[in-house]
C-alpha cells in the first residue's frame, strides 16, 4: 500500500536589508517567502535613530531647525519650512509677504529635487537604469540653484523663524526661470523611456492597489494617498505660506496602483514648475525677515515675547526691548505642511522658554513604512521593490 505523505515545505525567510540596493538606506524587511510570493513582511526600522525629538527638546528653536533638515535629507528646505511655520505659530511671529513667496518657491524647488530622487530610485529599482542618470542631471541644476541661493546644496538651512535667511537676487531668479522653461522638456525624456513602456506597465499597473478607505485608515499622505484618488493636499485644504495665492492642480489617480502614483508624481513635477513660475512672477518687494522675529542667538531661558534678542550695544541703536511676561504655561500647536513625501506635522509644546518642551515630528515616511507590512502580502519579491519605490521613503525621516 502506498501511503501518500504530504511533502513538507517551509517558508524561506529572507532578511532584505539593511544593506540592500533597493531598500533606500537602512530599511530592513524580514520577508517570508513561499517560492517568490511574499507571505509576511515585517519592516524593521531604527537603524538611523538619532533621537531627534529628544535633542530638539534640549536645543533652542533656531538650532532645532538644523536638526529638521536632517529628517528628509532629499528635501531639507521643506522640512525646515515646516518647522519654521510651526515655531512661528507657537511664538506668534508674522512672516513678510516676500518671504512667504520665496518659501513657496523653494519648497516647490525641493519638491522637484525630491521627486527626481524618487523617480531615479524607483526606475533603477525596476531596472530602468538610464532614467536615473537623466534625472540626476536635472537635479544637479536644482542643487546649483540652491547653492546660489543659500550656499548649500543638500542641507540648506535656508528659512528662518519669521522669514527666510537671505533675499534672492535677480541672477538667481533668471536662472530659475530658465530652468522652469527647460524642465518640462526634460520630464518628457523620462516619460519617453518609461511612461508607455510595456515592461514598466507590467511592473507597475495593478500592483500594490490601496483603496481610498484603506489609504486613509493607514494614514498614507502625499502623492501616495492622492494616487488612490483622495484629494488631500495640505497646500489646498489648509494653505500655508503663499499657496493660497498661486494656482495649481492636485493630480489624482484612479486605479490606486503603483502606476497611478507614478503618474501623480510626474504630474506634480509640472505643477511645481507652474508654481515656481507664478512665484517668480508675483514675487513682491520688501524685507524677507520679520525684524521682530527671534534671532539666531535665542536664549534657552524664558522668552521675552515679541522682542528680538538685544544686539550687542556697541552703537546704541538697538532700542531696549519692552519686557513682556511669558505666555501661559503650556501652549501647543500641531502644524502640518505638505512636503514632497506627504504630510509633515510638527506637534510642538512650548513652556515659554527658548526651547520647545516637546517636539514631535510626524513624518510621512514613518507612516508609509508602517503601511508596507500590509501592502506587501501576497505579492512577488519584485513587487516589494516596486512598492518600496512607490511610497517614496527616506529612512532619515522614518527613524528621526
Amino acid at each position, binding site marked *: 500500500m502506498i501511503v501518500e505523505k504530504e511533502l513538507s515545505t517551509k517558508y524561506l525567510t529572507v532578511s532584505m536589508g539593511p544593506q540592500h540596493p533597493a531598500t533606500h538606506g537602512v530599511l530592513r524587511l524580514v520577508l517570508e517567502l513561499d517560492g517568490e510570493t511574499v507571505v509576511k513582511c515585517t519592516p524593521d526600522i531604527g537603524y538611523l535613530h538619532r533621537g531627534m525629538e529628544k535633542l530638539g527638546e534640549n536645543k533652542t528653536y533656531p538650532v532645532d531647525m538644523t536638526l529638521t533638515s536632517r529628517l528628509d535629507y532629499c528635501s531639507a528646505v521643506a522640512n525646515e519650512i515646516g518647522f519654521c511655520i510651526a515655531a512661528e505659530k507657537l511664538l506668534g511671529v508674522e512672516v513678510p509677504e516676500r518671504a512667504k513667496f520665496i518659501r513657496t518657491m523653494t519648497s516647490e524647488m525641493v519638491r522637484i529635487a525630491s521627486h527626481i530622487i524618487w523617480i531615479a530610485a524607483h526606475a533603477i529599482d525596476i531596472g530602468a537604469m538610464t532614467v536615473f542618470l537623466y534625472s540626476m542631471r536635472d537635479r544637479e541644476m536644482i542643487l546649483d540653484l540652491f547653492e546660489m541661493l543659500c550656499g548649500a546644496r543638500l542641507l540648506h538651512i535656508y528659512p528662518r523663524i519669521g522669514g527666510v535667511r537671505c533675499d534672492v537676487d535677480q541672477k538667481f531668479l533668471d536662472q530659475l526661470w530658465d530652468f522652469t522653461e527647460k524642465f518640462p522638456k526634460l520630464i518628457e525624456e523620462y516619460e519617453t523611456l518609461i511612461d508607455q513602456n510595456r515592461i514598466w506597465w507590467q511592473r507597475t499597473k495593478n500592483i500594490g492597489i490601496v483603496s481610498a478607505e484603506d489609504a486613509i485608515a493607514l494614514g498614507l499622505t502625499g502623492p501616495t494617498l492622492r494616487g488612490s484618488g483622495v484629494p488631500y493636499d495640505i497646500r489646498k485644504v489648509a494653505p500655508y505660506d503663499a499657496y493660497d495665492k498661486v494656482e495649481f492642480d492636485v493630480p489624482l489617480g484612479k486605479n490606486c496602483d503603483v502606476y497611478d502614483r507614478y503618474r501623480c508624481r510626474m504630474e506634480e513635477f509640472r505643477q511645481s514648475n507652474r508654481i515656481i513660475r507664478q512665484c517668480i512672477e508675483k514675487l513682491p518687494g520688501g524685507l524677507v525677515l520679520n525684524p521682530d522675529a527671534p534671532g539666531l542667538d535665542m536664549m534657552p531661558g524664558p522668552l521675552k515675547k515679541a522682542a528680538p534678542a538685544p544686539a550687542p550695544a556697541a552703537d546704541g541703536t538697538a532700542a531696549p526691548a519692552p519686557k513682556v511676561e511669558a505666555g501661559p504655561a503650556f501652549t501647543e500647536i500641531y502644524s502640518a505642511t505638505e512636503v514632497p513625501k506627504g504630510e509633515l506635522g510638527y506637534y510642538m509644546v512650548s513652556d515659554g522658554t527658548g526651547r520647545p518642551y516637546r517636539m514631535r515630528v*510626524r513624518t510621512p515616511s514613518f507612516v508609509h513604512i508602517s503601511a508596507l507590512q500590509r501592502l506587501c502580502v501576497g505579492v512577488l519579491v519584485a513587487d516589494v521593490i516596486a512598492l518600496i519605490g512607490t511610497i517614496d521613503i527616506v529612512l532619515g525621516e522614518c527613524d528621526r
Partner: protein
Amino acid sequence: MGPKEAAEVLRKSFESEVREISEFNAGQVSVTVAKEKIREIMRFLHDAPELQFHFLSDICGADYMGKKEPRYEVVYNIFSMPNKAYLTIKAQVPEDDLAIDSVMDIWVGADWRERECYDMYGIKFSGHSDLRRLLMPDDWDGFPLRKDYPLQADLGDREWKGYIDVIETYKRNKVYEVHSR
C-alpha cells in the same frame, strides 16, 4: 464646521470625559479628555456624520514631569476632510496606570505610532496586536523621551549591551587598523 464647534459637539456627547477645551493661535483646538473612554471618543469622532474625522495624522506621547498632573498625555491629531479641520485630542495618562486603549481598530495606521509611543514613554496600549519596541533595540533599558531620562550619561557597566559589544569589537580589531601618518 470648525475645530472649535467639533470640540463642542464632542463635549456634548462625552460630558464627563472632556476635561478642558483650549484654543490657541486661531485654529489650534485641543481637547483634554480622560483616558478611560478614548476608544469610544475616537470612534465617535471618526463616525459621527457631522464630524468625520477620518484621518489620523499622528499619535504621540508627552511627558509633563513635575509640571502637570497627571504626568503623561497621549496626543491624537486628527483631521476631518469634509470640514477641513484639525483637532488635537489629549488623553491624560497618570503615572501609576500607564495604559490606554489602542485605537488600532479604528485606524489600522495607528499601529506603529502607538508602538513608538510605547517605545519612547512606556505607555502601554491595551488591545494593540504587536506592542514591541520599534526604534530602540529590543533589549533597551528605559524610555528615552521621558523627561527624567538624561540626554547624555556615562553609565559605565550599565551601558546597553549592544554598545559595549561595539566598543569591544573595536578594541579587538584595533590591531588590524592601518595607521595613518
